[in-house]
């Protein structure tokens, strides 16, 4: 029993899953809505959700899902019609932020109450992974159509918890959904997501016992909180990967030697020690460690300032001056910048830090008005295709704002997306990772875990690598 109080840093913005792209919302959706296919707690494979089982046609175009017996929180049954509606809605609704990701869906039809048939336009290996995203949570067609815009505030849930109260800017109060098909599994009476923007305050609230748990423990406080006998600090593996974006379109940065030199000149260990207090590992691939198709043996460049200097010299890039775009107000970003500035200075690269407010930095990155900038990515779906496409797929966003071009990689990415054979896919991704590394599309910096804290009295407060909290298993003593 009991209500779990969790502190988070940002307010929810909506409860209509197609209308948000924020992690802050996704993590709440995950416990309010069920999806056809779930990602398991280890974050490495898919498991059945509302779909008991599914079959894929040999050409990879037709998916047939068998839905289990389940109910929405309002007591009405969850049918294949609702599932079809939800899938088409995320593709077609004008308010949907995810329409593009589901373009591959040609049709979705309910054959009967428990059978859903989805046809794709082209084969897509990541499709099942996509169905695990909170954005395509199964919604009640009746509720959505009858409530219209108001649905975003009074949702009908298909997951473990339902919305009881939403005090904007203050808290989101969820209570147990008795109609959830796994209701027996849920121990908590409810969950309160409480918004505490200030990191210090959030931690102090847990320390004082006003919160049962809090997410986003600042790196700097992990060691100290670990010492607190009343608290447990959870460092759960994540899909977060930090990297240094390089704008290949800017002069000398177009030269591979120069980018290599930057990689050699950056002491990832020092960043891990100083900025994230030793709580991470140096990254050797753009795919997060432990994630699907991660190549553990991907070659990494060691810290070697001498080699960096030599490379710069051969490339004729002595006296290189770079503008380093920093997200103002982001502590990790600012500290990384301060550190990198000093490290790069050692190899003769002058770094000018340009701090801009986060609302602006996206624009500047997209417009290409930067030389280097630290950034990170966490996966939304299990499959590496999403990230790979954005980062190396040569689509409209200039390979994630880097202007990296290598047509071989482009072809490989497309090929991997359509390849349904897992071993062949693995080989393709290994090749992609190696090429990206060789080309230095960006500089991989480090992998770091999710950092959450809970009181001793809380059990099973875990987050899977995709960010989903398994609150249906959490126990408050």
């Amino acid at each position: 029993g009991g209500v779990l109080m969790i502190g988070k840093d940002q307010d929810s913005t909506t409860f209509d899953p197609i209308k948000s792209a924020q992690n802050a919302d996704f993590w709440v959706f995950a416990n309010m809505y069920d999806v056809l296919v779930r990602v398991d707690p280890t974050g490495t494979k898919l498991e059945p959700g509302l779909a008991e089982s599914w079959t894929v046609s040999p050409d990879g175009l037709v998916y047939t899902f068998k839905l289990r017996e389940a109910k929405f929180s309002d007591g009405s049954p969850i049918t294949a019609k609702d599932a079809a509606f939800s899938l088409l809605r995320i593709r077609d609704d004008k308010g949907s932020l995810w329409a593009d990701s589901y373009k591959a869906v040609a049709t979705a039809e309910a054959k009967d109450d428990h059978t859903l048939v989805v046809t794709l336009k082209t084969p897509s290996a990541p499709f099942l992974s996509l169905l695990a995203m909170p954005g395509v949570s199964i919604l009640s067609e009746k509720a959505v159509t009858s409530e219209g815009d108001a649905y975003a505030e009074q949702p009908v849930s298909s997951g473990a918890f339902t919305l009881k109260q939403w005090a904007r800017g203050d808290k989101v109060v969820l209570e147990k959904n008795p109609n959830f098909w796994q209701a027996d599994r849920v121990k908590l009476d409810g969950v309160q997501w409480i918004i505490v923007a200030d990191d210090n305050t959030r931690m102090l609230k847990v320390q004082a016992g006003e919160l049962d748990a809090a997410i986003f423990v600042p790196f700097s406080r992990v060691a100290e909180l670990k010492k607190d006998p009343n608290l447990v600090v959870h460092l759960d593996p994540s899909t977060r990967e930090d990297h240094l974006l390089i704008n290949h379109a800017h002069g000398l940065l177009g030269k591979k030697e120069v980018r290599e030199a930057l990689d050699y000149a950056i002491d990832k260990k020092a960043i891990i020690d100083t900025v994230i207090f030793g709580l991470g590992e140096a990254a050797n691939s753009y795919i997060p460690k432990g994630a699907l198709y991660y190549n553990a043996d991907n070659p990494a460049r060691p810290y070697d300032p001498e080699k960096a200097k030599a490379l710069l010299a051969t490339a004729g890039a002595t006296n290189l001056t770079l503008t380093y775009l920093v997200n103002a107000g982001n502590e990790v970003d600012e500290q990384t910048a301060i550190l990198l500035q000093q490290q790069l200075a050692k190899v003769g690269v002058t770094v000018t830090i340009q701090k801009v407010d986060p609302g602006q930095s996206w624009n500047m990155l997209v417009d290409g008005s930067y030389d280097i900038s630290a950034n990170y990515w966490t996966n939304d779906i299990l499959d590496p295709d999403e990230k790979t496409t954005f980062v190396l797929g040569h689509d409209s966003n200039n390979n994630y704002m880097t202007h990296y071009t290598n047509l071989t990689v482009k072809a490989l990415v497309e090929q991997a997306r359509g390849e349904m054979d897992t071993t062949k896919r693995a080989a393709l991704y290994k090749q992609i990772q190696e090429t990206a590394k060789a080309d230095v599309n960006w500089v991989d910096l480090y992998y770091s875990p999710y950092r959450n804290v809970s009181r001793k009295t809380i059990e099973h407060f875990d987050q899977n690598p995709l960010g989903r909290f398994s609150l249906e298993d959490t126990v408050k003593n």
Partner: protein
Amino acid sequence: MHRYRFLLFRPFQLLPVLLGISLVTFVLVRSIPGDPARLLLGPRTTPDALAKIRAQFGLDEPLWVQYFLFLKNLLQGQMGTSIVYRIDVLRVTANRIEPTLVLVLGSTLLALLIAVPLASLAARSRGRVLDHVIRVVSTAGLGFPPFWLGLMLIIGFSVKLGVLPVAGYGDSLADKLAHMVLPCLTIALALSAVLARSLRAAMIAQMGSNHAVAARARGLSEAAIFRRHVLPNSLVPTINLLAVNIGWLIGGTVVIESVFAIPGMGQLLVRSIFSRDYMVVQGVAMMFAVATVVVNILADVLTVAVDPRVSL
């Protein structure tokens, strides 16, 4: 009654100010580089999606059209739709007004409760050790940034002593009051330093004033003179100082609300600036403006009530 005549005209004077504020806010928020659609969609997006969102919120209209739409909405008592929350701005702000109001009023009250005795003590022991101590202490109150002061108070009173809640905004009245003590105190410490300074100066001036001398010549004790003559006369400039500082005070709530996790207007405004939620920024700025003007009118009413000579 005619001393309060200004109440009839003030609302009309308000109009040009509000119009000016609407224009300034509009120009200001639109000049901040950055694109709300892009922020909403996050990094993993396509130009199509961007265009769709822009169209949905009318961001693709020419600026002046957007401004007139904003004004037109305003005249109809609407403030537009929040880009982030996708609902009416009025609804976004609805439950946030109270905490900020309580914070501002509470800290003003607390600041007065601190400043008046401190200033009285300092004024009455002018030039002596106590006076200097008060001066140094109040400067220190002003010298530490509020976010630091707030954290210190939390650590002291809530984590170590456990007598007050750490942060947040409670549900019941008593709960809310308990939650507001520390944030109000944080603002009040800085505000009272400002107030005490001016109050002390006013009191010293009043203590040396002719009418205080006359009261002394009537054989009144210093305490009676202070209570009956000096204090009331010192309040007028302080009221006005408070009114002038209202913008500063509301600005201060922005930080305090964040430190103390108070779901108020200040946090909303800052977040909306960063997420380029134009409509919310405009709406909240207008509300703050109205509040400021109302406070100033209140200050005028108070001044008129306290000082019979004034008629505005």
